[in-house]
């Protein structure tokens, strides 16, 4: 029986990298969105420029589930290289759209799916003479075919093409024509629509469609960042690139046409973080964006920033490690290397946004936190949040919010201060007062160093002074616990002994998994951790439950280790649920893994009559 569903299925495009499919696939996703139906697209791409396989998966969900679901209901097979695997992955009853220009042996198909052949190459060859056009328009032709098969509102697609080619009439006409080539062919030759359909609805609301990296970069603009130094690395490069675009839009002085920002593409990650530290030391809000390998390179400087107490913001868009790992696949795998970055005793503040809206909020807040705490702040994104368009609540900003520059001494303040010591803990919160170079002709200057020093910033190798300083840094970290975003708790409808802790991009899959688990009769409380150091509510959440699952996207249960280590919790109480094959975690996976364990934990008493002798 072919699958039947309205506004709730997964369509997967299988393409060759560099064939121009990306924009056609995005056009499809946006068209669905314009019909008022929530979509969650995911680009699964290789570390390659041209030729290797790439996939684009669009999850259509009227319920608004934005996590990856797993499985394919409809496959658009445009890549012979991956045909066998792609076809095998279609759900029973699913659909396959392929280019039927050349006949395929029967053995290449499956009996339990609906096969839809459209002679895409033949249509394009008939219509176009130039090879480049034949290639590019083939993508638009299949979008046209889909519009008929899925009963889409073609006017919305045309409108989007119009927006894309605004002022380029020729291109608009050519694309619109290609769209109708595919659509008309299906309408004349095939049964349509099929069992999977799209019906105009009103489920999108005021939500926006944005990549996490762009939202985080805008957060940096709103947070007052004026200096960005970076080195290209997937999947973080689009963050500084977006920052550049946002700055060109928001930060060019209209009168002088001069820039209220400085962006440097550095020679490497070491230099990037060095520039950030130099700028932050000198009072500008500065950041870098990188991924795991960059974090490894920056370790030495991160220790300096921790010990010399310099504000710095690092956006880590995580990818699968170790080493070069899988550069274009997602993971949450730098938790430990960021939390304890650098040699010696160090601890760093990490923020875990779940989606673009939080990437924006935390991206801005990171700069206040960095100035307040005078330490590096890591915004822990990942490829799944950073590089995919995600439906997100609109970004909001409170105009009454003023930058928190922290304990920064002005010349006037220095004049009335008898005893300035850069590392004196005046307020008992572990945070000292700092001065910027050039502030006062005779007061407040000091020497910043990575070597041990006393409370007045004077070099010392005396044990007592060293310990005094290290203890103050611990106090400062305690202070941070109440300043960073708090965990969010959502309890099950009925009391339960079980809890789950999760963070970051796992969020949409987790929300959906809870529904699946509830449908199976399991009740579970959840806590979304949004920052490190952990707020006391993390410890109490674990205390309130017999077992707590910790869901994360890495092999070694890094967040769990951090909780065990920092909250002194018996590891037995924390059950790891780990997904780390580089694909985004799915609700099906989480619900399955948790349910299996819950079933195992449930001790069902043996009933006598069931015992077979």
């Amino acid at each position, binding site marked *: 029986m072919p699958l039947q569903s309205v506004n709730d299925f997964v369509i997967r495009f299988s393409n060759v990298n560099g064939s121009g499919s990306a924009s056609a696939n995005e056009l499809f996703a946006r068209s669905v969105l314009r019909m008022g139906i929530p979509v969650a697209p995911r680009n699964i791409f290789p570390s390659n420029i041209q030729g290797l396989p790439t996939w684009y998966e669009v999850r259509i969900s009227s319920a608004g589930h934005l996590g990856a679901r797993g499985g394919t209901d409809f496959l658009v097979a445009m890549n012979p290289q991956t045909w066998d695997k792609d076809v095998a992955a279609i759900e029973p009853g699913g659909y396959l759209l392929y280019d039927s220009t050349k006949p395929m042996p029967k053995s290449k198909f499956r009996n339990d799916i609906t096969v839809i052949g459209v002679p895409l190459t033949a249509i394009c060859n008939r219509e176009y003479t130039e090879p480049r056009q034949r290639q590019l328009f083939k993508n638009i032709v299949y979008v046209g075919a889909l519009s008929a098969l899925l009963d889409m509102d073609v006017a919305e697609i045309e409108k989007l093409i119009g927006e894309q080619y605004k002022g380029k009439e020729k291109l608009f006409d050519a694309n619109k024509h290609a769209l109708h080539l595919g659509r008309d062919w299906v309408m004349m030759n095939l049964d349509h629509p099929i069992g999977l359909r799209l019906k105009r609805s009103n489920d999108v609301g005021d939500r926006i469609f944005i990549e996490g990296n762009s939202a985080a970069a805008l957060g940096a603009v709103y947070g007052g960042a004026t200096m960005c130094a970076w080195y290209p690395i997937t999947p973080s490069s689009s963050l500084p690139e977006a920052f550049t675009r946002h700055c060109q839009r928001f930060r060019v002085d209209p009168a002088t046409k*001069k820039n209220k920002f400085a962006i440097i593409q550095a020679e490497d990650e070491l230099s990037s973080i060095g520039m950030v530290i130099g700028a932050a030391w000198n009072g500008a809000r500065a950041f870098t964006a990188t991924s795991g390998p960059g974090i490894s390179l920056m370790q030495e400087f991160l220790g300096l920033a921790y010990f010399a107490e310099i504000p710095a913001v690092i956006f880590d868009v995580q990818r699968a490690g170790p080493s070069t790992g899988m550069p274009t696949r997602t993971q949450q795998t730098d938790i430990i290397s960021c939390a304890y970055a650098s040699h010696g005793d160090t601890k760093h503040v990490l923020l875990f946004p779940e989606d673009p809206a939080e990437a924006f909020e935390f991206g801005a807040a990171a700069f206040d936190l960095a100035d307040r705490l005078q330490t590096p702040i890591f915004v822990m994104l990942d490829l799944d949040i950073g590089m995919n368009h995600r439906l997100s609540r609109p970004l909001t900003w409170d105009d009454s919010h003023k930058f928190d520059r922290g304990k920064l001494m002005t010349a006037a303040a220095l004049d009335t201060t008898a005893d300035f010591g850069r590392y004196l803990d005046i307020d008992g919160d572990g945070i000292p007062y700092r001065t910027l170079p050039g502030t006062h002709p005779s007061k407040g200057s000091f020497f910043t160093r990575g070597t041990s020093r006393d409370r007045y910033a004077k070099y010392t190798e005396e044990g007592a002074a060293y310990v005094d300083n290290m203890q103050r840094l611990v106090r400062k970290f305690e202070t941070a616990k109440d300043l960073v975003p708090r965990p969010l708790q959502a309890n099950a409808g009925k009391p339960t002994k079980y809890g789950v802790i999760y963070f970051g991009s796992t969020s949409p899959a987790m929300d959906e998994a809870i529904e699946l688990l509830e449908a199976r009769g399991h009740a579970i409380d959840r806590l979304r951790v949004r920052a490190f150091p952990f707020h006391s509510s993390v410890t109490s959440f674990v205390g309130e439950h017999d077992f707590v699952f910790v869901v994360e996207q890495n092999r070694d249960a890094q967040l769990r280790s951090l909780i065990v280590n920092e909250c002194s919790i018996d590891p037995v109480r924390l059950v790891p649920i780990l997904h780390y094959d580089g694909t985004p975690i799915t609700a099906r996976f989480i619900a399955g893994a948790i349910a299996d364990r819950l079933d195992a934990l449930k001790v069902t008493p043996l009933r006598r009559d069931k015992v077979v002798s």
Partner: protein
Amino acid sequence: MTYVIKPKFRHPELPKNEIGFTHRDYEGAVSTLCAGCGHDSISAAIIEACFELSIAPHRVAKLSGIGCSSKTPTYFLGSSHGFNSVHGRMPSVLTGANLANRDLIYLGVSGDGDTASIGFGQFAHAIRRGVDMVYIVENNGVYGLTKGQFSATADPGSKSKRGVVNTDSAIDLVGIALQIGATFVGRSFSGDKAQLTPLIKAAIEHRGAAFIDVISPCVAFNNHTGSTKSFDYVREHNDVVNKLDFITGRATIEIDYAPGSVEVVQQYDGSTIALRKLDAEYDVHDRVAAMSFLQHHAAKGQIVTGLLYVAAESEDLHSHLNTVETPLNGLGDQELCPGSAALEKFNASLR
């Protein structure tokens, strides 16, 4: 090193500069380097240069890496903020600092171990970006703090104190700086204060990347027979191309050298360098000729010192980036945060 604490007493008749500061206002803590260290002479030249230029000490930011040379910023300009960063990474930290506040003077102090090895990349990139700074390398060809290993600027054939002969070829930082686009390049000798002080003054007033290589013998590990960075060797092989006097834009220009042998170099801020040419064939504005001249003399075992190159016109990183005149660290919420109305428009563009 010495354990003497500097007395706070100041003689009332100490000479004052234009802004009323005495020499003592430009000093720092007592040096902990070895007695007779060439680096201390360089610190003294920096103090002298800043005093003579009447620079307010707190308007200088001094940055360094790791090593003997990088310790020296503690020993001059005690009222300036200093930053002793990590090994070889002073250039990136200085670049960031400079971007944050274009109004300060940035003095980067490094050594040959710091700049020519781990920091070689950062040195090159800061120079090629045209960061407005004075980059001084205190070059002794040896790792002092770790007790006498060769550095990458040690000449092949030179002998270490332990008798080991260096077989690796030497990195000539001046040659590299010229090649990658430094707009001001000089070389001097720590024992030649008369040459070094005006060179530093001119470098401070230069807009753009100014690089000075100062050969500074290590009295502990590199001042013996067989070393090419010893006091005796450098004095014997020093080939001075010009003698310079530095005159700030504020002072009247009076040049009393014989016409023909003097070249007046005008800097962007109106300051002037008067160069008394000692070598008739040397043209301070010809970068390619300078490189060839240096190579030619190096082949003969001669160390060319003086102002080696100054670009007729120079720009810095801020002009490349078209940044606003107000230092970036002085911009507040009003100038930086676009606000909620702009955000609503942004949201609307994403639907």
